[in-house]
């Protein structure tokens, strides 16, 4: 089984977001970087499939050179190889991103590697475009199952499950090769081991120069949503505050008198 996982480097924002002066990006001076939890689960899923069925896994990112850090993180989890699409500093729009990934998949095919499964996150953590995986699938004429939380692959076929809008599971069966967009919860990703990290450091990263074909959605500026007003009412300290809490619950009609 040959599996490709596409991931995007994003800042690991915490309690609040600060923007740069030019409003073009998040101020990342004090932040680390990561990938979406959806994509981390996609990496784990790829590693498990290869552990169980053989073959190899490849992680790909389009971004600046520092995004190689996220490729190494993936290899520390057990992904076998990595491709860096050198996209320079600024963010590519979803159409341009999809086109660059399609180009890379085709070039891998020319080099003799064809993927049985291509994994994406259901949506990128930062831009939340909800489209790159689906665009890639159409360009490669592959079926795409979106938002999955269970996947079984065997003998050229896949059974995927995702949550229905009102709970329960929707089941999809497709022939491979296919594209899957994955949601967190499909598995619990392992923590990278120290030997895994050391191995990842030494591995080669294949660099490619993608063609940039800008699409019709262009970022103008970022802005913070209006702050919710309102002041927190401190009900007290420790267990002594319990009566005040119960009174509030009674006022809200959650506890009968």
């Amino acid at each position, binding site marked *: 089984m040959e599996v490709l996982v596409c991931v995007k480097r994003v800042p690991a924002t915490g309690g609040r977001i600060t923007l740069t002066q030019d409003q073009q990006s998040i101020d990342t001076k004090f932040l680390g970087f990561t990938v979406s939890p959806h994509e981390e689960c996609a990496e784990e899923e790829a590693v498990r499939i290869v552990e169980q069925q053989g073959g190899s896994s490849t992680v790909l990112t389009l971004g600046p050179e520092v995004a190689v850090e996220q490729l190494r993180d993936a290899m520390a989890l057990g992904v076998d190889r990595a491709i860096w699409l050198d996209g320079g500093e600024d963010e590519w729009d979803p159409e341009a991103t999809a086109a660059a990934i399609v180009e890379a998949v085709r070039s891998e095919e020319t080099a003799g590697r064809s993927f049985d499964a291509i994994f994406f996150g259901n949506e990128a953590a930062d831009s939340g475009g909800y489209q790159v995986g689906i665009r890639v699938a159409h360009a490669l004429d592959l079926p795409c199952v979106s938002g999955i939380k269970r996947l079984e692959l065997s003998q050229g076929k896949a059974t995927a499950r995702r949550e229905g809008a009102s709970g329960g599971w929707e089941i999809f069966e497709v022939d491979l090769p296919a594209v899957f967009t994955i949601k967190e919860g499909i598995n*619990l990703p392992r923590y990278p081991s120290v030997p895994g990290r050391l191995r990842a450091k030494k591995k080669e990263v294949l660099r490619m120069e993608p063609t940039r074909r800008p699409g019709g959605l262009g970022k103008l500026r970022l802005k913070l949503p209006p702050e919710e007003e309102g002041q927190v009412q401190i009900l007290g300290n420790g267990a002594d505050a319990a009566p005040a809490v119960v009174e509030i619950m009674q006022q809200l009609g959650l506890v009968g008198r």
Partner: protein
Amino acid sequence: MILVWVDLAGPEPDMMSLEALTFARGIGDSVEAVVVAGEDVASRLGAFGVGTVHAVSDDLLADFAPAAWAQCVVDIMDSLLPEAVLAGGSDRGNEVMAHVAAKTGLAFAANCVEVETGDDYVVTRMRWGGSLLEEARLSGATKLLTVAPHSLAPEEAPAPTDPIVNQVTPVIAEEDLRVRVTGREAPEGGVSLADARVVVGGGRGVGSAEGFRILDDLAALLGGTVGVSRAVTSLGWRPHAEQVGQTGTRIAPDLYIACGISGAIQHIVGCKAAKKILAINTDPDAPILAHADYAVIGDLHAVVPAIAEGIKRALAT
């Protein structure tokens, strides 16, 4: 003309489609709708000012098939050339619109909260699940966008219409049916996180899987359920199905009790629709306090059982 793809929840249009219809009336003078496998929704859509309902039906489309459903939208776009196509910002809305975008080569903006129309649209859309907004230029002969969930309240049109119903029998290519729902499994019983009236949230501060017993007890007393932060699911203390946030479930209870949760933006976007938030935290400077209505400063291991005792006493008198 603005075309809206309407999704159904059971036999009725779903909430987010009604939001999209309301949003559409703000953009264009005339609104039409396309609905797949929906019988009898025309009068409901008329209340939202829809002039024409394009009702697509075919046995092959009886259950969800994203690419085939998208092709139905594309066919109607080809004949009517709408200025824009909208859908609700549900998982399915975003998915179908992304297929429409991929098939037509048009740009697509997901989860918009505002639109300025023109040759190009300037849209304001959600990033980071809504913690950040982006202004973007959306160009193309037809603008494709979804409306961010609950960014406006669904409102019926001032004057209801009696929609013309255009029955559509689609021509479906085999390749568009490669992905479709071939089976369903029913939901498990119990209080669902998304619909619970009370959610007792636990974060890293709970300290261990066993530590959740007091939260389970409190939730049971209140007829609610437990929700958790990603720190908790990553540690394997609780299943991901309980995670609240950007990559978990969005909740909207009457009361959310956040115990030992710091209040990272990705958690907040999942719980900010709660009517009231009570934070229980040892740290008076925890970011969660900026979003909370009430707070207790202290160790949740002491506070939570004391609240449970207080409730029992109140119920006994």
